[in-house]
Each structure stands twice: as structure tokens, then as C-alpha cells.
């Protein structure tokens, strides 16, 4: 079975004149059959995005529709980026993305490597690790919200397992993090940024790592590392046993085989994984919304929640639309090169 999509032309060439007429009408049929989908997506994706963009430039910020353009044209975007909350959102997305992708790729790849050895019960393990991916982010959020509730959950588990007792023995304080309720921002870099970026002094938000974002990244990792594992396992299944055997004969250890041979061969899978996780993390909404909400001092607020609240609660349509367009631009920066390279590869 080979990819046959381009093979159709030679068969047609046998009777040029007659098939030409056929081809034309067949192409017409194809286009006509595709037309409903093309039109639907043209409207629901591209026209709608254009409308949102227009609203982001407009004066519309009450229930009364007002599509007149605001002066100066990009004033709403200026307003948006001057908001402490939006700055915090960008910081949170950045921090979440870094932690989530680092956790999920590391864990997913580790699980895949361990399962790739086909030990007894590897199917059961694989099914357990992938299971969270079948669940809704809302279910994940609702459950992990209790696990990261400082009054119970993990903190209670630390207590039960004697972690705090042991810590007290060595004279350390109890391990009782505030998790999603912790407003602390560590590793602040405002001072450093101010020396590099002009205007950084006026930023109201503390740039650093909001601790409350880490539990959210852990919950997202729980949900998606099985997905990463499945993609890697799919990739590993395509690498023949001869490749491993050759490396083994050359004296490579099991670890070296993965480190030097298999993982480098899986580069396309890694690219897919990172692109998919990146776009998930830039869009993340339900999980954060149900698990942590906006958090103390917007410690867990993200752009998707900002847009939702501005549009559907505060009715500041132009502001919400501007934020939505920024989200779209961020996702497009990741997705467009990826889709373009896929397209180029195929043709």
C-alpha cells in the first residue's frame, strides 16, 4: 500500500481527448461537493475572525452594538497591554507553557521508553497512562482542585505519610504549600527586564514564576502526558528491530540506544508533540477555569479566561476581542509554520 493520491494521473493519460472532458466534469463535481464545507469554514473561521478583528478596533463596549472605529485605531490594544491583569495573563501563559511542556514531554517520553520494552502487562500500563486523555478538562479541573486544596488533598497525604514528622525531626518546617491559593511570584526578573527592554519599569506586573501556576501545569501533565506517550510509542513502533540490533552489536547500552539512536530518529514526532502541546497551552481554558479560576492576584488567570470574562460577563466587547486576536496571533505563530511545512513536504 503506497500513497496513491498522486498516482491517478498516469492512468488517465491513455485516452487524452475523452478523459479531458471527464476530468473537467469530475473536478467540477469534486469542487461542488466540497463547496458546502469550504463555504461553512470560510464564514465560521475566516469571516468570523475578521469580524472579531473589526470589533477589536471599534468602540463597542456596552450591550449596545457600536461598530464605529475607535480613534486612534489600535487604542484598545494599547489599553489591553497597559492592563496589569493582561500582563499577568501573558506571564502566566508563558510560565504554564514552559512547565507544562517540560513536564509532559519528559514524562510522556520516559513512559514510552519504559513501555517500549514490552514488559509483562505493558498494555495495561499504557491504557492506564492514556486514560486521563479520554476525560474532560472540566472533570480533571474539578478533581485536582480538591487534590491541591491546601486544607486536604496532597497536604493531608504528606501528613499521613509522615513527611512532616520527618521534616520536624531534622528541624525543618512542615511541608504545607498553598498550591493554587498561593499568590507568591518567585524568581522575579522585573529589574533585569528593565535594563534590557525600554519601558519595562512601567509594567505593573511582577514578572517571575507564579507558584499557583505549577499545580495547574501538573494537572495538565496528568491529562496529556499519556497522549505524548502514545505519539512516541506510535513513532517507536515504526523503527525496525534491525536498527536497535545494529546499535547493540556496536556495543551501545539500552540507554545509549534510546539516547543516541531512537530519540533522534523520532524528531518529527517530537516536533508534532511540541506544536500540539504549545497550541493546547496557549488556548488553555476549561482546566484553569474549573480548577483555579483567576487565582489570588490573577496568579492563575490566562488569556482565554480574560476573553471569556470581558466578552460574556463585562460586555467589554472590543477589549475581549483584542485579547482574542492576540491569542489567535500567538497560536498562528506556532501553527502556520507547522502547517506550511506539512503542506510543502507532501507536494
Amino acid at each position, binding site marked *: *500500500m503506497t*500513497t*496513491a493520491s*498522486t498516482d*491517478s494521473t498516469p*492512468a488517465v493519460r491513455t485516452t487524452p481527448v475523452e478523459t479531458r472532458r471527464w476530468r473537467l466534469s*469530475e*473536478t467540477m463535481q469534486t469542487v461542488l461537493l466540497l463547496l458546502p*464545507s469550504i463555504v461553512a469554514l470560510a464564514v*465560521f*473561521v*475566516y469571516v*468570523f*475572525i475578521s*469580524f*472579531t478583528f473589526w*470589533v477589536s478596533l471599534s468602540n463597542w463596549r456596552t450591550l449596545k452594538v457600536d461598530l464605529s472605529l475607535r480613534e486612534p485605531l489600535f487604542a484598545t490594544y494599547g489599553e489591553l497591554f497597559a492592563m496589569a491583569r493582561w500582563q499577568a495573563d501573558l506571564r502566566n501563559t508563558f510560565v504554564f507553557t514552559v512547565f507544562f511542556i517540560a513536564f509532559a514531554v519528559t514524562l510522556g517520553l520516559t513512559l514510552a521508553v*519504559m513501555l517500549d*520494552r514490552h*514488559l509483562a502487562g505493558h498494555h495495561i*500500563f499504557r491504557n*492506564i*497512562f*492514556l486514560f486521563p*486523555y*479520554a476525560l*474532560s478538562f*472540566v*472533570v*480533571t479541573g*474539578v*478533581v485536582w*482542585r*480538591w*487534590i491541591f*486544596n491546601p*486544607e*486536604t488533598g496532597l497536604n*493531608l497525604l504528606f501528613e499521613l505519610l509522615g513527611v512532616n514528622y520527618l521534616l520536624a525531626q531534622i528541624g525543618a518546617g512542615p511541608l504545607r504549600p498553598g498550591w493554587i491559593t498561593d499568590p507568591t511570584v518567585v524568581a522575579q526578573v522585573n529589574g533585569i527586564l528593565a535594563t534590557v527592554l525600554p519601558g519595562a519599569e512601567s509594567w505593573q506586573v511582577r514578572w517571575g514564576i507564579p507558584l499557583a501556576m505549577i499545580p495547574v501545569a501538573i494537572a495538565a501533565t*496528568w491529562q496529556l502526558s499519556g*497522549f505524548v506517550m*502514545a505519539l512516541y510509542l*506510535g513513532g517507536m513502533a515504526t523503527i525496525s528491530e534491525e536498527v536497535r540490533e545494529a546499535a547493540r552489536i556496536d*556495543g551501545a*547500552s539500552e540507554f545509549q540506544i534510546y539516547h543516541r539512536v531512537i530519540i533522534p530518529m523520532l524528531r*518529527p514526532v517530537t516536533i*508534532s508533540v511540541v506544536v*500540539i502541546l504549545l497550541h493546547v497551552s496557549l*488556548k488553555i481554558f476549561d482546566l484553569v*477555569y*474549573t480548577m483555579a479560576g483567576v487565582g489570588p492576584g490573577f496568579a492563575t488567570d490566562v*488569556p482565554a479566561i480574560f*476573553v471569556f470574562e470581558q466578552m460574556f460577563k463585562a460586555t467589554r466587547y472590543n477589549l475581549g*476581542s483584542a*485579547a*482574542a486576536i492576540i*491569542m*489567535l496571533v500567538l*497560536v498562528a505563530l506556532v501553527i502556520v509554520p507547522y*502547517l506550511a511545512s506539512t503542506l510543502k513536504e507532501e507536494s
Partner: protein
Amino acid sequence: MTTAALARKRRRPRWGAYAVWFVLFCMAIVFLMPVYVMIANGLKDAQSVSLQRMWLPPAQLSGANGFVGAWERLSPNLMNSLSMVIPATVLSSLIGAINGYLFAKWRFRGSDIIFTLMLFGFFIPYQSILLPLVRTLQVIGLYGTIPGLVLVHVIYGIPITTLIFRNYFANVPTELLDAARVDGAGVITTFIRVMLPLSIPAFVVVGIFQFTNIWNDFLFGVTVVPNPARQPVTIALNNLSGTFSVEWNVVMAGAVVAALPTAIIYILLGRFFIRGILAGSVKG
């Protein structure tokens, strides 16, 4: 020396295997921990559920456990979800099958670019289309209704269902099409006579993929349907979780109830589920 070295290599993985198996076992426990929390606390009644006893199993099974309350509150929304997800899954799979067939077997000038432009619609943050979407649904009278949600899920499902079917049909030998063509079959007849009978596995994969995606949606449900009585179960679960008067054994049981349909599909049809993941990841 070489034989000795080889023998050592062969023996080593056995010890390594135990270690790996142990690590996998521990990871499995960690992965199942939230599932345990959901079920164990859902099975407790209002008196025995407490923050201090979160990790303990229910002492006894009473008739007033969280599942009773959760079912009472969520079953109408469960029905809403079903009446949304079934037509949406069927329609988007059918549309995807036709589109995928056309994009794979009847390529024309610019068809790849059109396909890629369609596929982009799968990746966009839906926040960037919500406002005009809600306005449009209001104008055509589908705002706040399940048919409105079906329409939304069908349209935004087209890119991914088309992609999976396109990749599937690309592997069907073109000779089969040529044979049908010699018999005088046109574009549609070939699809119905040749491609559809071959595409059952792809339908299963796409069906599971779409069922899970649509069932698990939150954003469209919460913005397109404001009336709590008509909302899908994921939104109802979130409302339940935010209600302070509700004991959290009910919330935990509610999470299990909302997760159950996709969980059952996963347990029964896990093989196809994994294929869907591989097929849906663009390059695979």
C-alpha cells in the same frame, strides 16, 4: 571476551526489567490516584465525607451516597449531552468522509491549499470567533439550543474529520478507483460503492475521536447555551462544583458521572482510541 560481553548485556536487562516494572507500577498508582479520589469520595454519604478523610475509602455503602445526589442533578444534562453528541458525531463523520475522499483521490489545482486553510480552523482559539458565532446563532434562531450546539460542533469538526479520512483514503490503492471508473462510476458512485465499504475502521476511529471531543467540550456549551437546564453535562458539573451548598461527595460523584460515557468508550475501544490520536496528530 566478546561472548562474555554479550552475555553480560543479555543478563542485564532482566534486572533492569524489574526496576522498570516497579517504576511503571508506581507511576500507575500516581495516575490512578485522582480516579480513586473521585470514586471513593463519591461513594461516601454527606455525613462521612470530610476533608480529613479524603484518602480513606468509604466506611460503609449507604443508600445516600454522592452518586444519588449527582444523578439527580446531572441526569437531565447528561441527556442534553447525548442529544448533542450523537447527531454531531454522525454528521461530522459523514462530512469528513466525503471531504477526505475528495481531498485524497480527486486532487485539483489548489486543493492542498484549500485543505490546509480548512485545517487551520481546527487549531484556532475559539475565543476569536465566539462573538460573531453567538450573534449568528441568535439571528438564525439556534442560540441557546442543542441543535445550535450540534451545528457548531459539526462545522468546527469538519477540519479534523476531513484530515483523518483524507489520510486514511490516501492509503487505499487508486487502482480500485480506476476499476470503478472503467465501469463508468462517477465521483459519488465510486465513493458509495468502493470507498464507503472500506472505511468502517476509519469511521470507528473518527467517531470515537469526535464523540470524546464533543462530549468533553466546555467553551461552546457555556457560551452558546446560557440556560442551565439545557446545558451539556460538563458545564453542569462545573456549576455543581462552584455551588457551596453542595457537599463535595456529590461533586466527586458528578465528575465520575460526567466522565463515564467517554471512559466506557475508552475502556471498550481503547485500540481505536489510540489510532485516532495517531491519525489526528496531523503528521502522525
